[in-house]
C-alpha cells in the first residue's frame, strides 16, 4: 500500500495519457476531452506541493512524443495552463465543483489556443471552431474526475 501511495499521481497521469491516445472513431475523436489537463488540474489544486509546473512540463513532453508533435509544444501549453491554476489554487479550492468546471473550461480554452498558436508558428494550420469541442467536454468531465480523484486521494491518504 505504501508503494502505491507514492506513485498514485504518476499512475493517474499515465491512465489519463492512455485515454488521451486511445484510438476512437473520427466522429468521437472530435469531442475527446483533455484528460491529462483535467487530471493534472485536480492534483495541482489538491496538492500543489506535489504537482505543479514541473510535472506539467514533463507530462507535456510525454504528450509531445505520444502525439508526434514537435517537442515542447504540449509542454509549453500545459505549463502555462497549470501555472494559472497553481497560482490561484487557494481561491479555486473554495469554489463549488460547478464553478470549478467553468474555470477548467477557461483553462482548457487557453490550452487549446496556445497549442493552436504554437502550431500556427511552426506550420500553416488554420483555425477551426470544431477544435474547441474539447473545451466543453472537459468541462462536463471535470466533476466526475474531481469526485473520483478526491475519493482516491482520501482513501490512500495522499498528502
Amino acid at each position, binding site marked *: 500500500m505504501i508503494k502505491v501511495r507514492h506513485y498514485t499521481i504518476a499512475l493517474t497521469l*499515465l491512465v489519463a*495519457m*492512455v*485515454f488521451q*491516445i*486511445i*484510438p476512437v472513431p*473520427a466522429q468521437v*475523436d472530435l469531442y*475527446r476531452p483533455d484528460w491529462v489537463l483535467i487530471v493534472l488540474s485536480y492534483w495541482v489544486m489538491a496538492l*500543489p*506541493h506535489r504537482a*505543479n*509546473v*514541473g510535472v*506539467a*512540463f514533463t507530462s*507535456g*513532453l*510525454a504528450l509531445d*512524443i*505520444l*502525439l*508526434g*508533435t*514537435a*517537442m*515542447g*509544444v504540449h*509542454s*509549453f501549453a500545459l*505549463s*502555462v495552463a497549470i*501555472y494559472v491554476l*497553481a*497560482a490561484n489554487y487557494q481561491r479555486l479550492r473554495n469554489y463549488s465543483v460547478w464553478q470549478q468546471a467553468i474555470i477548467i473550461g477557461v483553462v482548457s480554452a487557453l490550452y487549446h489556443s496556445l*497549442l*493552436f498558436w*504554437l*502550431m500556427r508558428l*511552426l*506550420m*500553416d*494550420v*488554420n483555425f*477551426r471552431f*470544431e*477544435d474547441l469541442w474539447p473545451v466543453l467536454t472537459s468541462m462536463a468531465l471535470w466533476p466526475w474526475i474531481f469526485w473520483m480523484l478526491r475519493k482516491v486521494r482520501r482513501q490512500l491518504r495522499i*498528502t
Partner: protein
Amino acid sequence: MDTIFTRGPSLNIRLALALAMSVLLIVLDYKLDTFSTTRVFLNSLVSPVQYLANLPGQLLNASAQRLTSQQALIEENQQLTNRILLLNEKLQRFTVLEQENAKLRRLLDAPVRQNMRKMVAELMAVDNTPYSQQIVINKGAIDGVFLGQSVLDERGIVGQVMEVGSINSRVLLISDVTHSIPVRSVRNNSRFIASGGGAIDELYLSHVPHSADIREGDVLVSSGLGKVFPEGYPVAEVTRVVRDESRPFAQVNIEPLAKLNRLKFLLLLWPQDAPESPPVDGEVSSD
C-alpha cells in the same frame, strides 16, 4: 501543511524555466531537427503506453471474432472466395500484359519496371491532434522500415514513414498540412503537386494554371518525381475544379483513393535502392 513556496524555486521561476525549456526544445526539434535520432529512442520508450491504449480495441476485436456466428463466417468465406476468383481472372490478364509491357519497354530501350519487396503492417494508433494527421504502425527498425518509406493500403497511397521506432513507426498521411506528393493525371500525364489540407478526406492541387487540362473524375497516380514515392500508384481522384479567373490559380479539390479514416492493414514498400531491407521471413512474396 507546507506550502509550495517554502521549498524549491518560486512558481514564477518554475514557469519561466519550463517555458524557456519548451521554446528551446521547439527550436531544437522543429527548426534544427536535432531530435531525429533521439526520437527513435523516445518512441520506443513510450510504446508501452501505446500498446496499453490499443488493448481495449484489440480485446473488443478478439471478442467480436469469437462471437461471430457460423452463418456469418460462411457468408464471408463465400464472398472472399468470389473475390479471389475475380481477382485471379484479372491477374491472369495482368501477367500477360506485364510480360508484353516489359517486352515493349525493352524494344524502346526504356528501363523495365522492377518488382518491389512488400510487407503487411497493421495500424496501431491514430493521431488525433487536429493539426497533424499521423498514424502509428506495428513495424519498426527491426523489420527494416526506413525513413521516407511509402505506405499504401489496398486502394492507394496512404503516406510516408516519418519516424522510425525499434518496433513501431509513425506514418505521415498524405492529407497532413505539411505533406505534398507529386502526381500525374492518368488521362493526359500532366503533372501536379497534391498537398494535404488537414481534412482527412480532401487534398488540394497547388499552383494549377487556369488553362490546365483537368476535370472532375480524373484519377491521379504518383509520378515518382520526388524520389520518395514509387511511380504509378493511385493517389486521388479529382472531385471539384473551380476556375475563378480573379484568382491566380485554379482551385482543384481531390479526394484520396485510400480510405484514410478506416485504415487497418497497410502495405510497406521496399524499392530496389532502399537503404534497408526487410528480414526474409516477414516478407510477403516479392513476385
